[in-house]
């Protein structure tokens, strides 16, 4: 059968190799497959060319042919494995060619070389996300997996581990594996060869991750000897083994608060992972990610890391450019975690001038690096002291950040918004830098994005931008954003966006009397939106932000106070507004505090209409509710309630 020639300009398209791959002469076929194998191994570009050329189905055909000699099968399996190694298009082509079931079948072949080759290829396939998911719930599948793990052959045990690493995702799957005795099998492999040890550690970590039940099973295995074997391996001479042992211990530590909590082991993990950063290969690329998960959200771990001079270490690493993008990303994420809570870390970070390196990375060609640099910047800019000193609000930092708001990659945009949100919480003189860099226009654009995470973070950034801003700044933002857009953000489909939009309005109407006017622009479109949202939302955060908006407005002039009264206590109550008493009686003390604040501002005694409003509040039962609130368990509520009552008594006393 003639093969179709592929008319294309690339070098190998005129290659007669396709014909030879499907030659009827076994010897010709063998040589052709071996030739393809030798050309593609280690060579990504060649893999892609041959995949495009359609070589994979022809190579796979030799695997399925029952007339193929074992030597031919070995070459075919090896070539398919190489196609699948590190190239997703290759995995897809191998799967599409139907080679997968044949490879599985060959695992039980009599010839050991065939078994090895098939197992290696399957392992390559299982390293890709595209590999078919292994169903652990089928009895025969589990038996087969146990058989693989029990095997003497390293390639088969490695395949077993690879299947677990690829397919074990849910807690139920983890438990099924534990129940079937997989943990025991895997721990036996810890005493095996280097590759078995690594495969075992990696799959153990997958099975116990975020699963306290599996963790206790593992910890109690062989009365704790399994855990001590893993602990011992953190001192192994091979850096990869050390890293995997650490990851395994991390899985134990992070998924349960009962194990590995003593300071000695914590410190040890910090030091081992810091030392692994020096590895020049893949281990060094992965170590910062492991370090991140060791310290993320844990202040005590961050403290230990700080004492181990982690910031210094990362700084030294960053000086060695150019770093592999993966490693760079990991280092920034780790630094971000380090600086997320502790001011001492941030100070050290800034005094070592790591900031410059992070800023440089904002324009890195790799999106993950840009995003990680933003995340790091967000953590560092939590430092109030340095924010006030204007450390971040300068063109060198702000300009690239604003550029990132129009990044093609959404995760970068979100990360940049996170950093901007912090940096704009700044004090007067610096905000103009952000405006000069065109930041406001970009932010306003993003509030109209289809992506809700972008809308959320853009509104958040604007909210922080408006915080304590002066009139010029507020006016500039208001003109850009417009009252009607703000009203639609308040009515956004996402509750989280609604909440931030209310907080934005709250900051707009905060401060001098002119501020309050923003809420009344375009016939009070904003105020109406706030009222509507308060009526229909049951979320505490939203109610609270809404009440603070009203409280700020009620601090304005007579007209403003009356508008709030109208909104909260309409004369023709249509019944759909939850009564204000419900806010006062909320289970959440923050909500009660916000509600009392509104009353405090409405009853401010120097105002002309205070008396009338007080009488109204009295007749609505608000005053008697306030009297009960003087006994509130929350000190904030109690004090505000006393304050409001004082004003009310004052007003009645005067008249």
């Amino acid at each position, binding site marked *: 059968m003639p093969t179709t020639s592929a008319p294309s300009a690339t*070098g190998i398209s005129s290659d007669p190799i396709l014909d030879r791959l499907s030659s009827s002469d076994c010897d010709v076929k063998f040589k052709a497959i071996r030739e393809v*194998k030798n050309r593609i*191994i*280690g060579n990504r570009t060649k893999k892609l060319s041959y995949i495009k050329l359609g070589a994979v189905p022809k190579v796979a055909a030799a695997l399925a042919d029952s007339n193929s000699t074992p030597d031919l099968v070995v070459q075919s399996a090896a070539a398919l494995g190489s196609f699948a190694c590190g190239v997703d298009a290759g995995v897809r082509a191998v799967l599409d060619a139907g080679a997968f079931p044949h490879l599985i079948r060959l695992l039980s072949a009599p010839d050991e070389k065939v078994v090895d080759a098939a197992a*290696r290829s399957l392992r*390559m396939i299982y390293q890709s996300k595209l590999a078919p998911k292994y169903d652990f719930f089928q009895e025969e599948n589990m038996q087969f997996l146990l058989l693989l793990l029990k095997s003497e052959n390293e390639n088969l045990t490695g395949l077993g581990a690879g299947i677990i690493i690829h397919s074990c995702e849910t807690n139920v799957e983890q438990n099924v594996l534990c129940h079937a005795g997989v943990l025991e099998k895997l721990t036996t492999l810890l005493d095996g060869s280097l590759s*078995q040890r690594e495969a075992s550690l990696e799959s153990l970590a997958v099975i116990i991750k975020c699963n306290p039940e599996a963790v206790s099973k593992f910890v109690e295995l062989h009365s704790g000897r399994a855990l001590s074997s893993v602990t011992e391996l953190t001192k192994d001479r091979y850096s990869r083994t050390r890293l995997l042992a650490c990851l395994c211990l991390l899985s134990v530590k992070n998924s349960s608060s009962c194990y590995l909590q003593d300071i000695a082991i914590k410190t040890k993990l910090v030091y081992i992972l810091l030392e692994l950063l020096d590895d020049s290969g893949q281990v060094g690329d992965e170590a910062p990610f492991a370090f991140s998960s060791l310290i993320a959200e844990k202040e005590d771990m961050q403290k230990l890391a700080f004492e181990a001079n982690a910031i210094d270490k990362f700084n030294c690493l960053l000086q060695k450019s150019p770093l592999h993008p993966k490693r760079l990303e990991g280092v920034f994420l780790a630094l971000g975690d380090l600086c997320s809570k502790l001011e001492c870390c941030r100070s050290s970070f800034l005094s070592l001038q790591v900031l410059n390196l992070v800023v440089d990375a904002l324009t890195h060609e790799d999106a993950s690096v840009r995003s990680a640099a933003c995340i790091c910047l967000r953590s560092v800019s939590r430092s109030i002291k340095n924010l006030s000193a204007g450390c971040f609000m300068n063109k060198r930092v702000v300009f690239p950040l604003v550029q990132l708001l129009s990044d093609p990659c959404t995760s970068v945009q979100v990360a940049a918004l996170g950093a901007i949100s912090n940096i704009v919480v700044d004090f007067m003189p610096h905000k103009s830098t952000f405006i000069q860099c065109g930041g406001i226009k970009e932010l306003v654009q993003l509030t109209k994005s289809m992506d809700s995470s972008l809308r959320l973070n853009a509104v958040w950034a604007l909210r922080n931008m408006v915080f304590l801003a002066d009139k010029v700044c507020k006016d500039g933002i208001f003109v850009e954003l417009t009252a009607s857009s703000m009203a639609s953000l308040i009515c956004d489909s996402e509750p989280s966006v609604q909440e931030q939009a209310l907080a934005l309005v709250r900051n707009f109407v905060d401060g001098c009397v002119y501020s309050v006017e923003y809420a009344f622009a375009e016939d009070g479109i904003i105020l109406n939106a706030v009222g509507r949202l308060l009526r229909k939302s049951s979320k505490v955060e939203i109610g609270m932000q809404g009440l603070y908006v009203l409280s700020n407005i009620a601090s304005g002039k007579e007209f403003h106070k009356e508008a709030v009264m109208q909104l909260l206590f309409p004369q023709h109550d249509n019944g759909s507004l939850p009564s204000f008493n419900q806010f006062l009686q909320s289970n959440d003390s923050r909500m009660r505090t916000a509600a009392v604040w509104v009353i405090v501002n409405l009853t401010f005694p120097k105002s002309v209409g205070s008396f009338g409003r007080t009488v109204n509040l009295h007749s609505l039962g608000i005053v008697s509710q306030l009297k009960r609130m003087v006994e509130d368990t929350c000190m904030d509520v109690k004090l505000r309630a006393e304050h409001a009552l004082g004003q009310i008594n004052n007003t009645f006393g005067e008249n």
Partner: protein
Amino acid sequence: MSLFWIVIRQLAEIEAMAASKKVITREEWEKKLSDVKIKKEDMNKLVMNFLVTEGYVAAAEEFRKESGTEPDIDLATITDRMAVKTAVQNGNVEDAIEKVNDLNPEILDTNPQLFFHLQQQRLIELIRNGKIEEALEFAQEELAPRGEENQGFLEELEQTVALLAFDDVTECPVKDLLDISQRLKTASEVNAAILTSQSHEKDPKLPSLLKMLIRSQNLLDEKAAYPRVTDLSTAILEDPAV
């Protein structure tokens, strides 16, 4: 191995005792050495480890027969590994690559640095043989894409290609690449990768023990005069200079 640790511990004890530089006579020293008990099998294992790692198959086979020490790896795999190493040492890099791929296709597929160095060696051999056109085509076709994937490779590639720019390579600043030592370097890198893929240590233990001996002697020299071993090939104790 335990021998050396024991010696080191004793040296440390002596060190602790010595306020000023202490003199240890040959008799004292030899007595101390004879107190250290070392199992013959451990010494044999050390030798076998050296022979296997360095790839001396015939010697390993002979040593196994004579001493009864079992190698920790199938001796047949050494033959394959040595064939690869020899091929690189002789400049037959393509042959070496095919042999590695037959041995275990994963080695070069998962070790980009080694793969690049082998391809680089291939380029060097082409240049050495004056096949300039072929060398250029090879550099462009096979090596340039790797350089695009990795900045470090690109720099190494540029250096290698610089060999082409000089009519008289002895004037080229990277002329060392043409030296036989470059072949040996590449060969030992492949050797190490194959050993690792067989779950075997890539370096023999004996040389690092000798390094430890030298270091501990150097440390002790500051504190004491004792019969030291200077010539490692004979391991003769030299009388302390008093």
